[in-house]
């Protein structure tokens, strides 16, 4: 099934490809507007726009921009994990006035389609879906934050998302990247998150999902943590051995 470049309300999907793309600066500006607290990750977006980047050896990355009514209203950043049959959704963001009109659901569908294409390109039969890290409502510090976290989680559930029953700590950044130094991220801390699978039609049809593969795919291949890292061990400890 081909990607639908035209979406609800006249939305248009633009692929941002290459470091010299004129859409890259627009992407970075829009990202800053939608995710002001994540501004330090702008170099990550620039890296993802290259598709393949030496600091991301196991992923094939995508940056999409959404235009609607001559305005830039959305950004999508995700990757296919070349070593697995699933992807990783890093960011999906829409400007406030463009939310609630079906753009998010459309973007999720197009992401799944793109990942299926990527899977075929990398010699797989198809992608089972993609993983996302979603803030846990229980970690919210205010009632408003908790409400927003619940709304985000509900959106993903409505898109068919399956909350995977593994304790998951989101690392601050991919290990060893050459575009952000550890000093720039020293104020950041790893955060507990829900790990959610957005299944494709193929993924939703599977009678069993391989949790170990998901955890390894994200931690080892995307974040490039060593298998003995405490995050990896903690995630799988219940699965492998029962109680810690």
């Amino acid at each position, binding site marked *: 099934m081909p990607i639908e470049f035209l979406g609800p309300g006249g939305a248009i999907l633009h692929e941002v490809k290459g470091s010299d793309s004129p859409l890259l600066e627009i992407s970075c500006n829009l990202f800053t507007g939608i995710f002001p607290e994540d501004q330090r990750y702008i170099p990550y977006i620039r890296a993802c726009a290259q598709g393949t980047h030496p600091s991301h050896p196991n992923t094939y990355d995508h940056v999409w921009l959404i235009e609607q009514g001559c305005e830039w209203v959305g950004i999508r950043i995700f990757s296919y994990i070349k070593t697995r049959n699933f992807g990783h959704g890093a960011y999906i963001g829409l400007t406030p006035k463009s939310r609630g009109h079906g753009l998010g659901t459309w973007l999720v569908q197009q992401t799944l389609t793109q990942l299926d294409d990527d899977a075929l390109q990398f010699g797989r039969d198809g992608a089972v879906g993609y993983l996302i890290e979603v803030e846990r409502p229980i970690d919210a510090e205010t009632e408003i934050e908790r409400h927003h976290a619940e709304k985000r989680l509900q959106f993903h559930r409505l898109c068919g998302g*399956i909350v*995977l029953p593994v304790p998951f700590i989101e690392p601050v950044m991919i290990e060893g990247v050459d575009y952000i130094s550890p000093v720039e991220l020293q104020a950041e801390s790893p955060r507990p998150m829900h790990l959610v699978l957005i299944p494709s039609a193929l993924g939703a049809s599977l009678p069993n999902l391989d*949790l170990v593969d998901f955890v390894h795919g994200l931690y080892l291949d995307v974040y490039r943590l060593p298998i003995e890292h405490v995050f990896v061990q903690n995630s799988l400890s219940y699965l492998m051995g029962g109680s810690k």
Partner: protein
Amino acid sequence: MNIEPLARLKTEWFERFNRILSHNEAIPYSNLKCLELCEASCCPRIGMRQMPSEKIASAIVVLLPFEMEYLIEKSGASRTLFRVWPVDLTPDLRIEIGMFDLGKPCPFLQDNRMCGIHEHNPLDCRTFPLLPSLSPSDELEWVLGDNCPSLAFLNPVFSEKIKLIWQDLEPALPRTWWDLYSFADHWTGWSQSQPEELTRAD
């Protein structure tokens, strides 16, 4: 770990289980022909699914919060018989949910296919072939487990009573418990490198 809230929650859940069990006699007979038509099709045990041993699946019975502790207290069973899975209620408060799956099959299933703890068996077992779930908009929904051989005999009055029990419990169940519960049937549970001896019951 906060011991005090945990102790309070445990007491609350134990009271719920006592209440449910004390009302047991008021629950009409399910009319399921478990012994006549079935060989414990819904009880977690090795061989219940046609899967290669390295793909042992899956969580079959998911206990309610503190139901494992309740069963341990009532039956004297060891905690090692259960698979446990974490559910975080707050950043500082984690409870462990007991389960039976093919990696840790039901220790109470007897050779004659009877349940060794029938008088206080888990609510999940008693509820089958009714399968509850929580919708994205937090509504309790029900489907029927179509692998139950005596589904056609299921007493609708029994179904209504069971649904009422779950409706009463639902406000006390954390959303993360429902996530775990709904994932149960998708759960591979073991990597291919899992040692074979761990795939049988302790």
